[in-house]
Structures are given as C-alpha cells and as structure tokens.
C-alpha cells in the first residue's frame, strides 16, 4: 500500500529499536498514521506521490523517533518479560496437567463396585478416619463375599495442598476378635490427589464378629474395630 518512501522511513525508525519483538506493532502503528495523513493530503487535492512525500516529512526525524522509541522498548525488560511469560505459561500448563491427572482419581471406577453383586454376602459402610503425619486415611467399606473373601476399602490423601505424593504401602495388621492374624493378602491402589485402595483377605474367619485394623510402627499407632455381621447371623441360626 505504501511506497518505498514510507518504507525507508519506517525501516530507519525501526533500526533503532533493539527489542525486535516490538518492531511489528510499532510499524503497524506508524504505517497507520502515515496512511491517514496521506488520505488527508489527497482530500486537500494532492497527488498520491506528493501526499506521501508530505506525510513522511510531517513525521519528523526518523533517527530521533527511533532512538526515543528504543528507550521505551527497553530490550532487557522486553526479554525478561518474554522469558518470564514463557516460563509462567509452561508452569500454568504443567499445573493444569497435574490437576487434570489428579482429577482423574475422582472419576475412577469405584473398586468396591467390581465385586459381582451375587457374590456379596454383605457389605458394611464405615466412616473411620485416622491421621498419621500429614496423611489422612479413611476406611470406607468392608465387603464380605460368599467365598469368605473379605475386602477392605479405603482412601487416603494429604492434609493440606502441599505434600509429596507418597504412596502408602501398609495400612496395618489385619486381625479379628478371635485372635486370628491375616497375611498373604492382595491389594491395589490407584492414585491422584485422593488415592483409592483395596485390601483383600482370601479366607476370613466366619466366626469373627469384629475386624481389627491395627497399625503400630515407628511410634505411630491406630486401631480400628469394625463390627461384622457374621456374629449376629450365627446367633439367629
């Protein structure tokens, strides 16, 4: 649209602007000004070429403008702005990614729903919450299957927003009121901000009427007693 005359002027102005990323915006702004001025002169009756000549002349000294613009577009500040901007953007992405990954755990399948209904002898909803160090563990459900397999469901998360994502290896010894101690169990955990876990004991005593989870390790202790239905059914029989 503009002829070499304005181009020469604009290029000279921009040659003084050291922060190259701002050059484009400055060029557009000055170009707009010159073309407005050309229109103005042409309305007054100038020929295009003359109008452009006058317009560029009206702008003033390219060198002076360039030097002053460069002061306002400090390259050091410009670079800090760009670099911090990029880092901030990357961190926001990473942050959202971590949040999204963790949110996943809220929508994860409920482990306790995986047991076929027909196999369930009974299930007990529990609300036991304990805390060791920064970790809050909630025991949510116990399912007893026809086969004698007993599963304990729990979730855990960190108190507070800041905390490493350590996994919990051990929730305690599994006992019952009959004095039995259970080992060789299988379990699984799936993580995020809130981790869901499940522990399965293959052959739980049918006589026991209390399930005991007892943690006592390195001066941290808790003991949870969960009444089972087994005892009651025995009495009815």
């Amino acid at each position, binding site marked *: 649209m503009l002829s070499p005359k304005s181009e020469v002027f604009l290029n000279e*102005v921009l040659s003084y602007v050291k922060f190259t990323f701002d050059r484009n*915006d*400055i060029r*557009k*702004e*000055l170009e*707009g*000004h010159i073309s*407005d*001025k050309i229109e103005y002169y042409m309305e007054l009756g100038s020929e295009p070429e003359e109008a452009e000549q006058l317009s560029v002349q*009206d*702008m*003033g*000294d*390219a060198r*002076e*403008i360039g030097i*002053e*613009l460069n*002061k*306002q*577009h400090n390259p050091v500040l410009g670079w800090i702005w760009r670099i911090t901007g990029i880092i901030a953007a990357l961190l926001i992405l990473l942050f959202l990614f971590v949040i999204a990954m963790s949110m996943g755990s809220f929508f994860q399948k409920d482990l306790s729903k995986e047991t076929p209904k027909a196999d369930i002898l009974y299930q007990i909803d529990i609300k036991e919450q304990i805390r060791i160090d920064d970790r809050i563990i909630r025991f949510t459900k116990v399912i007893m299957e026809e086969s004698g397999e007993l599963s304990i469901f729990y979730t855990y998360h960190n108190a507070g927003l800041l905390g490493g994502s350590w996994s919990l290896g051990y929730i305690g010894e599994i006992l019952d009121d009959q004095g039995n101690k259970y080992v060789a169990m299988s379990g699984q955990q799936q993580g995020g901000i809130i981790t869901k876990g499940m522990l399965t004991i293959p052959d739980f005593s049918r006589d026991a009427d209390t399930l005991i989870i007892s943690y006592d390790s390195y001066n941290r202790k808790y003991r949870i007693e969960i009444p089972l239905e087994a005892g009651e059914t025995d009495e009815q029989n």
Partner: protein
Amino acid sequence: MEIDKGLIGGSTVLLLLSLLEESDLYGYEIIRRLEQRSDNTFKFREGTLYPVLHKLENKGYVKSYLSKGDTGKERKYYKITNHGKKQLAEEKEKWERFSLSVNKVIGGGIHAFS
C-alpha cells in the same frame, strides 16, 4: 506564526492526558486535535508523539487496545487509566501554580516599572 514542535518534552504529558480524558484516541487523531486546538500554531513533528505515548503506557497512565473504528481500519487506541487521571490532576495543579507565578513575575515587573 508557525512553531516547529517536537513532542518529546515535559508539558506534552499534560496535553495528551487531558485529551485522552475526554475520549479514547489513536495517534493520528491526537495530532489532529492538538493542531485544531492550537489553531494550527504548532507544526508537529508527528512521529515524535509515539515515543511519548509508549512512555505513558509504560508508566501506566494509559493503556492501549486495538479496535476498528467507524472507518473499519484497525487502530491502536489509547485510554487513560485511573493512575493516569491522578497524574493528570497533579500535572494540572503544577501547571496552574507555574502559570500563576509566571503571571506574578510578569505582573510584578509591570508594577515595578509603573
């Protein structure tokens, strides 16, 4: 009388901020208004307006945005900020005090010679 005037200088801030207080303007419009108001006394070196506008923006007195006006051409408009309004009030006060004392000196001089 035509005075050749560059815009890089102290009093320009007052002029620009008071224009922008009335409405949002783009560079070319600012020049036109300055010329009209000064009855074409000033022959501006128009390009020197931009470093000043960018300085005002860096100081936070104005902010800019791109917009297509009535003509459909995309232009960079400047808008005065609250910070800029405060600055304008200050500059106005300074200017009034200054012109008052100038008048006193001039008046005083006349008085002395009378």
